[in-house]
């Protein structure tokens, strides 16, 4: 039921009650009024009955006077009879509703008619001078009885009517009482009905509104909603909406939780994989480290003993010179020593030196992953200036121009950062094109709003450049492009890539063969979270 209808009922129920009571009141008032009317009517009847008696008595008096005066003229007038007829007619009309009284009126009428006939006979007697006869008749008790009958009938009629009057008065007072009682009942009933309706309404609507308010509050606080309120009005609908909202909220929360758990699970898996990878990398580095070490020991012997052989060759020469062999034999032996033994030894020594360099490079590479960084705010400007200073001889030799923009600081291990720039600037200088004046520029890109924690430095040269096919191998260890131009084992870029990655940054290269190369490296501005480090990876641009 709608609230409007409920409100309407709130007004209508006591209203209907009052209407009913009003009807009863009206009815009782009508009854009282009718009872009063009847009471008045009875009085009228009684008075009218008196009116009937008067002309009868007058007629009797007139007869007596006529007899005394012996003059019948007074008796010939019909006015009293007419009046009598009229009064009886009126009386009859008044009691038309009461058959018993009407019968009595008819009897009175009959008695009057009988009396008139008797009077008429007396009048005739008087006219004819039979006065004596008349007096005798007058003395006749029968004549007296006629009057008395009328009198008695009238008295009886009035008595009945007075009884009626008494009854009717009683009815009037009863009706009045009833009316008062009804009035009081109507008043009390109306108040009671209104109070009851108000109470029911407030209990129904008010109670449910309280539940509804509680539910709304719980919804904001995220608590569990109370049971649904009953009924089928707007409150119920609102409550239903609240419950639906709550359910949807709960569903959304569950979804969010599930999603979060899923994310966390992925993060855990990622962490585990990452840890595993790190462990593997460490294992690999440890393996490389120990293998390099073990390889070094025999190399020491190879190098040492080839040197010993070299010394022995010297002694051999001395011995030959001092010997008494003929010159031809001496020369032959010298030739063998020079051309076979010495040349072979040179090759061995070169090979050993090369192997030793490779092993050293491997050791350096493995150490990059194991060495502990002392990360701090690092002045890149100073580091680059130091690197350029250390390379000033080479730069002069190559007649190169090396310029550095003002460089903002980064957050990292100063030694490692120096390695990065030393390597990049060293490469740039070493691989300049001898055919044109070389320039190397060190700078920083404008801050990237998407990567507020990182700064991108670059080292740009107008050197030999890198063929597109080779770009993808740039950061792999032991790859050398210009083996003839400069010394090295081809681990420099692999080394600094490892350093940059360990700092959470990235390194990549852009190059046009014959025009120049630009190396970019992003380095953190402030301490990086491990998660950020995960997101960073290797990247190579063509």
């Amino acid at each position, binding site marked *: 039921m709608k609230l409007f209808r409920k409100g309407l009922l709130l007004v209508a129920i006591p209203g209907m009650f009052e209407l009913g009571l009003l009807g009863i009141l009206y009815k009782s008032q009508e009854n009282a009024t009718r009872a009063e009317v009847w009471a008045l009517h009875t009085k009228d009847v009684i008075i009218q009955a008196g009116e009937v008696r008067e002309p009868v008595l007058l007629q009797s008096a007139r007869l007596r006077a006529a007899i005394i005066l012996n003059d019948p003229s007074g008796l010939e007038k019909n006015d009293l009879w007419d009046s009598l007829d009229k009064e009886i007619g009126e009386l009859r009309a008044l009691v038309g509703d009461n058959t018993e009284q009407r019968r009595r009126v008819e009897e009175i009428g009959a008695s009057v008619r009988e009396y008139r006939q008797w009077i008429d006979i007396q009048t005739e007697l008087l006219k004819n001078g039979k006065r004596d006869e008349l007096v005798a008749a007058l003395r006749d008790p029968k004549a007296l009885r006629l009057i008395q009958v009328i009198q008695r009938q009238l008295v009886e009629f009035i008595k009945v009517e007075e009884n009626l009057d008494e009854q009717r008065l009683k009815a009037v007072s009863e009706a009045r009482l009833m009316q008062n009682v009804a009035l009081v009942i109507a008043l009390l009933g109306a108040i009671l009905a209104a109070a009851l309706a108000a109470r029911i309404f407030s209990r129904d609507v008010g109670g449910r509104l309280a539940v509804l308010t509680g539910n709304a509050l719980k919804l904001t606080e995220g608590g569990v909603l109370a049971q649904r309120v009953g009924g089928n009005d707007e409150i119920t609908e609102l409550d239903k909406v609240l419950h639906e909202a709550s359910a949807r909220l709960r569903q959304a929360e569950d979804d969010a939780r599930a999603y979060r758990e899923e994310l966390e699970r992925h993060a855990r898996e990622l962490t585990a994989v990452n840890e595993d990878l790190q462990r593997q990398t460490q294992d690999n580095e440890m393996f490389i480290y120990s293998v390099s*070490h073990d390889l*070094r*020991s025999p*190399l*020491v*012997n190879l*190098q*040492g*003993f080839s*040197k*010993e052989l070299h*010394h022995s060759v010297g002694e051999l020469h001395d011995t030959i010179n001092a010997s008494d062999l003929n010159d031809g034999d001496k020369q032959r032996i010298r030739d063998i020593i020079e051309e076979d033994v010495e040349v072979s030894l040179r090759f061995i020594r070169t090979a*050993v*030196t090369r192997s*030793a360099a490779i092993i050293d490079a491997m*050791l350096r590479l493995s*150490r990059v992953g194991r*060495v502990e960084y002392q990360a701090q705010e690092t002045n890149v400007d100073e580091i680059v200036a130091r690197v350029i200073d250390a390379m000033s001889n080479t730069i002069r030799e190559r007649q190169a121009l090396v310029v550095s923009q003002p460089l903002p600081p980064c957050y990292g291990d100063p030694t490692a950062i120096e390695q990065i720039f030393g390597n990049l600037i060293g490469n740039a200088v070493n691989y300049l094109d001898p055919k044109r004046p070389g320039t190397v520029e060190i700078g920083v890109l404008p801050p990237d709003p998407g990567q507020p924690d990182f700064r991108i430095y670059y080292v740009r040269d107008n050197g030999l450049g890198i063929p597109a096919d080779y770009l993808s191998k740039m950061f792999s260890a032991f790859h050398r492009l210009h083996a003839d131009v400069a010394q090295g084992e081809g681990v420099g870029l692999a080394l600094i890539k490892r350093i940059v990655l360990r700092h959470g940054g990235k390194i990549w290269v852009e190059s046009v063969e014959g025009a120049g190369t630009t190396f970019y490296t992003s380095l953190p501005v402030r301490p990086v979270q491990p998660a950020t480090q995960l997101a960073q990876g290797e990247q190579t641009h063509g």
Partner: protein
Amino acid sequence: MADKDEVGILLVEDDDGHALLVEKNLRRAGLSNGFLRLKDGQEALDYFFNGEGVPARERFESLVVLLDVNMPRVSGVDVLKRLKENESTAAIPIIMLTTTDDPREIERCYDYGCNLYITKPVEYEAFIEAVRRLGFFLQIIKVPPVGRGVA
């Protein structure tokens, strides 16, 4: 064996080739000191201490120990530790020889009190020079019991 007036050289080295190379180069460099080679750390400990772990001699004068780090049984670092822990042997100058140039390893040896740490080079000249200079140096002054940066 160590002569009373000369600096004796005790080489503890498991690799025969290395041992021979060290001796040859020292000789060629003009060091004529007494020379003894032991094959591993256990032999070195047996040389310095008797069965009860008591020093075999009261004093070890005019002696330089060249100690390889990586050896079977007892490593050079363990020998270094034992020698520097004992009062009688703590003053012996010790040169660590190794193929490792790991800074942590070097740090560890200096913490235990080694006097010099030399990475076994493929080129021997630098090594010989270092030993020679240390030898001359040791002929003039005593080395503090535990110290760093003597070289």
